[in-house]
């Protein structure tokens, strides 16, 4: 399963998609098909990462992503060291660099990093010298989430080429939106970012293949996939919105809004959901919803990423 040379040099880390060619990204999606088959077997385990130790370094709380990564690593037969910042020296003021150097001395082979600060995964990559998978850093990037979103859309349509994806909600604070805006155009899709003006930074319009709008109907018109972003209520103290009700009135992804999309358009959500706020229950649970599919695909994508970064490397 080693990647052919034409894909370009294999990146050492998955921090964002900057160093990743479309061919390599497609290879990750292709491998995820195989991983899904593994997950359908009675014994859901392959020996690919036997003998390797993966550190789940979570400096920010996350149950879903941590579980997904942990299972992915275990299903590949890796040993998993879980490192939660709340119970570590980080809370005693130890610097990120010191923390990583200590963990590295445990002879860890790769890191999965979640951190509240944008760029922290890059620092871990610099300090640890081992492959790092960014499991979400600040507002910056959440590449495996974007890959699983892309995979879920591809599963539906066979390809991302020429597809329109509308991402609606708190774009300003969303690493999911940023990663999707980076990834999907590389795979041939068009991305529309949509939200209230206060949550939609104008500078994101500079990204290739990405447009911005504050009008949700315009955003979903002709869309093949519509993703609702979690409204980060903890960030709403700063006066970004008049009220949550006002937000829901205009920007909620619901069946009425979906009527403006392509007839077979699917609904996505990175979770966890604020039901009946950014997404209505009818949209979340209805026939268009692929939200649980995203979770299932997430595990396969993460297995594929681990395989790509760790197998066959010196």
């Amino acid at each position, binding site marked *: 399963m080693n990647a052919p040379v034409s894909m370009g040099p294999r990146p050492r880390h998955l921090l964002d998609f900057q160093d990743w060619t479309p061919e390599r990204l497609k290879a990750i999606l292709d491998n995820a098909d195989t991983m899904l088959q593994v997950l359908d077997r009675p014994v859901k385990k392959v020996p690919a990462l036997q003998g390797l130790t993966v550190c789940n370094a979570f400096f920010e709380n996350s149950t879903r992503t941590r579980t997904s990564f942990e299972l992915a690593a275990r299903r590949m037969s890796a040993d998993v060291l879980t490192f939660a910042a709340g119970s570590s020296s980080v809370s005693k003021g130890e*610097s990120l*660099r010191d923390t990583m150097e200590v963990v590295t001395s445990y002879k860890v082979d790769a890191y999965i990093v979640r951190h509240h*600060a944008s760029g*922290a995964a890059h*620092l871990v990559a610099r300090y640890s010298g081992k492959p790092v998978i960014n499991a979400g850093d*600040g507002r*910056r990037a959440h590449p495996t989430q974007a890959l699983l979103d892309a995979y879920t859309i591809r599963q539906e349509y066979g390809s991302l080429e020429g597809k329109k994806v509308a991402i609606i909600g708190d774009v300003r604070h969303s690493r999911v939106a940023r990663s999707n805006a980076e990834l999907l155009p590389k795979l041939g899709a068009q991305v529309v970012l949509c939200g209230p003006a206060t949550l939609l930074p104008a*500078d994101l319009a*500079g990204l290739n293949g990405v447009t911005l709008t504050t009008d949700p109907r315009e955003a979903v018109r002709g869309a093949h996939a519509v993703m609702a972003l979690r409204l980060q209520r903890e960030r709403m103290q*700063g006066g970004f919105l008049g009220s949550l009700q006002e937000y829901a009135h205009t920007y909620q992804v619901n069946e009425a809004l979906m009527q403006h999309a392509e007839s077979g358009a699917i609904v996505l959500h990175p979770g966890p959901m604020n039901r009946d706020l950014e997404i209505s229950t009818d949209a979340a649970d209805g026939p268009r919803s692929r939200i649980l599919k995203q979770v299932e695909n997430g595990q396969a994508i993460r297995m594929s990423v681990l395989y790509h970064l760790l197998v066959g490397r010196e």
Partner: protein
Amino acid sequence: MTITITNIKRLGSDALTSVTVENGVIKGWNLPEQGQVIDGQGGTVAPALIEPHAHLREPGQTEKEDLASGLAAAAAGGYGTVVSMPNTSPVVDDPATVRALIEKAAGLGFARLKPAAALTRGQKGDELAELTYLKEAGAAMFTDDGRTNENARTLRLGLETAASLGMVISVHAEDASLRADGVMNEGAVSEALGLPGNPAAAEAARVARDIEIVAGLAAQGRPARLHIQHLSTARALDLVRAAKAQGLPVTCEVCPHHLTLTDEALRSFDAIYKVAPPLRTQADADHLLEGLRDGSVDCLATDHAPHTRAEKERDLLDAPSGIAYIELAFPLMYTRFADTLGLERIVDLMTAAPARVLGWPAPTLDAGAPADLVVLDLTTPREVNPAEFRSKAKFTPWAGQTLRGWPTLTVVNGQVAYQRT
């Protein structure tokens, strides 16, 4: 004590000469050698540099820097005088602390210290400090630098009081509510990196407010001098230009790091580039350089702000703001901008210009003037090696780069404060 420095060029001349200093003043040029003789090795002599804005962290934060390390670093950078900022722990807001700092610094034999005192008690922004007593104790100016003077009325009262004392107030001009949680320039780079941005408008809006306060006082016949620190945006500079055109007593400084680095540097996620105000765009840097050329920027300041390495190895949200490079400010300016600004303008911006802002006599090289001198080697390229820094902050964005214009000898008050070995 008498020193003769031989084999040197006086700034503005190519002829080799010598200078003799005695009892803290320049005795004369091209005199017979007297006292200790130092070979200037063909260097160019200028007045020792004046730093109007440095953080020396004493008292209270001496793990970052202290008077000895900071003033030794300044002397190595060619500075004869340093104005230190009062945001220490405790804040420098009482006359006894000002006196104690001056006395301690005088005994060290490096650069001379002129502490700035807080404008308000504890730099809390609400109640004025005892400005009269602080001036009498030797404070160079008043500032709440590190804080942003949110209370406009207090700033106005401070300007009125300082004006009556013949003193300048300097301000960190940044609207804290607009800055919000911004850790870098707001723009395409901050959005790409997903880091909270600090908009250029935060600086411009505050500069506009403060200029209006000065304009109001001037209209009442009470001119009060306001100095705007570390200007970083084109827009704010245009506001200062307009104020100057109206004859208002407003001055401003620019830092070399805002001229030589942009927000693109943050793509490294290295907190060494986290400064306040933040690194802006190339267009801002170009505009500031133009301001130095046309005279609308009054002087240069480094805002030398040392931190420990461990603090700077944090992520960009948690790391403190500040960059420390007082030892290489002149070589940096000379290497990058000698072609644009010329040697004499750069020297002026780092000597007479800050003196003018602070209301001090302009330094000269004439016989009878105070013997604060620097010898600059304008020709030999040398690599920036942080391990050699006198400052406790032994890291810099320019590490490994080759610069010219290094100071080889700094004389303060007629004594050798630094000599390159």
